């Protein structure tokens, strides 16, 4: 199973699309590793610098409809090669969410009010998130604040995270 704990990168905007996550000009690469420097290069987000703000982060917390647009699995891959395997948002685009779990990564939905609360308490601090997978728990810590939030993923998504992906599972079963 991949790592789902570490420092949090807050992206405070809804509808961040997969062209912003990894622009199409990099879809000519035939390896995942080549995508690493280009993650979030075209994001339309005031004050964000992809050259400085991604380093050392392991978790994204963001707003609604994350990963909309193109079906490119290069979007999860670009996160994966930057050691970011978990995105938390109120909602995701269908294909993006499927692609994350198909890669053994996690796209986890929390209610919009919870995300609001997390943004207001934590987004101005250097924040760590610990995932307790078996208990379905995220523990957020920053300075002297600590809060935990329950999460739920579907049985299929859980199976994919535990199996590390969908290809071998499907090949053995169908």
């Amino acid at each position, binding site marked *: 199973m991949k790592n789902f704990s570490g420092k949090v990168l807050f992206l405070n905007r809804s509808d961040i699309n997969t062209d912003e996550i990894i622009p199409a000009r990099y879809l000519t690469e035939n390896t995942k590793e080549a995508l690493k420097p280009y993650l979030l290069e075209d994001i*339309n987000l005031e004050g964000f610098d992809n050259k400085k703000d991604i380093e050392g982060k392991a978790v994204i917390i963001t707003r609604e*409809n994350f990963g*909309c647009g193109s*079906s490119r699995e290069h979007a999860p891959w670009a996160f994966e090669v930057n050691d970011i395997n978990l995105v938390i948002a109120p*909602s995701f685009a269908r294909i993006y969410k499927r692609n994350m779990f198909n890669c053994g990564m996690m796209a986890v939905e929390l209610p919009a009010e919870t995300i609001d609360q997390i943004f207001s308490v934590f987004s101005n601090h250097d924040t760590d998130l610990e995932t307790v997978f078996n208990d379905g728990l995220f523990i957020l810590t920053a300075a002297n604040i600590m809060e935990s939030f329950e999460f739920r993923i*579907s049985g*299929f998504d859980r199976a994919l995270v535990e199996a590390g992906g969908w*290809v071998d599972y499907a090949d053995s*079963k*169908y």
Partner: protein
Amino acid sequence: MGKTIAQKIFDSHIIDNPFEDIYVIRLDAVFCHEITTPIAINDLVSRGKDRVFDTSRIKAVIDHVTPAKDSKTALQGKILREWTRRHKINDFFDIGRNGVCHAIFPEKGFVRPGYTIIMGDSHTCTYGAFGAFGAGVGTTDLEVGILKGVCALGYPETIKINICGKIPDGVFAKDIILSIIGLIGVNGATNKVMEFAGPVVENMGMDARMTLCNMAIEAGATCGICAPDMTTVEYLWDFIKDEYKTKEAAQNDFSKYCSDPDATYEKIIDHDISILEPMVTFGYKPDNVKPASEMEGTKIDQVYIGSCTNGRIEDLRVAAKILKGNKISNALRGIVSPATTEIYRQALDEGIIATFLEAGFCVTNPTCGACLGMSNGIIAEGETCASTTNRNFSGRMGKGGMVHLMSPATAAATAIAGHITNSKLYKGK
């Protein structure tokens, strides 16, 4: 209880329900292009699973960057080409006989009512125009589709959009779908199917229906869908005439893929288009839409007519009608890319290509190219493009550029005016 089109197709293809909210369905076709397939092929090879579930149900095309623009894109084409040869996938469309995937696969008769189809491309939702269930997927789902002919999906709840009223002059399928996306938002149909119905859809040709369904993904939908009817039969007749004695028999058979009168919808939206104006996007989201009249005078550097949304023959005919006898403004440049080789040939025969050339357009080969900023018409930082494509995302057509989505008619009028315009030219006045 009645079912929707999508539910009927889905139910007849379910082979497993391994978890509460997930269904594994059998696929009638898997389509491939050179951007998302090569990594799937390489992964299958590295897993020792270089197999395909059924060579006759897999179709492939090189369309995104064609001709190849550099060594990397040449390699993507090469991997796809060699894979089709290795597995004897006969329906492979290389340069010279290719086209934008969602234009060429329907044109070849590969999309039929009742089919389930996936492709590693989000605009696979286009195929719903034929009463098929077409869903865009990522590379892993594509890989499993290639290997096993199955896909795991959630059950398709449907939003029905009844489009009624008289289509005003100068308003086309593109304006209608832009107005719907503006209404429900880029997240308005996530995980849902958008069923387009009503008299306006019934009177539309297949090209217009494809434009409607094509942009369902811009509202987050899994697929757009229209009921198959005699228009669908006429389009497909050359491909199905050996299977049916008469067109009526075909229509009768396809009617099993129409929604029941008592089908359950998640939501029904009545959309009267009688006073709809030509629509244009602003900003970086496809739901940022305004009437073209409110964008009048907006500076444009490039006009682009093409793509899986609006590069079909009907689109080129409308644009050519407006361009005929006119020159495009010196303030901008124009590019037209007929969506397939066959459309290109047809446009040549009808004098459409000559009209574009005389107006001052650059006529380029069929390709996705500029739509997603990969080749054949990328714009510079700070430039704007009036485009018949489907996405106005930040950087979509080139870093730092702005895309205004619109119909081919508005794009052609804009090319002549030199700025966005709600022109009388396309109102037949």
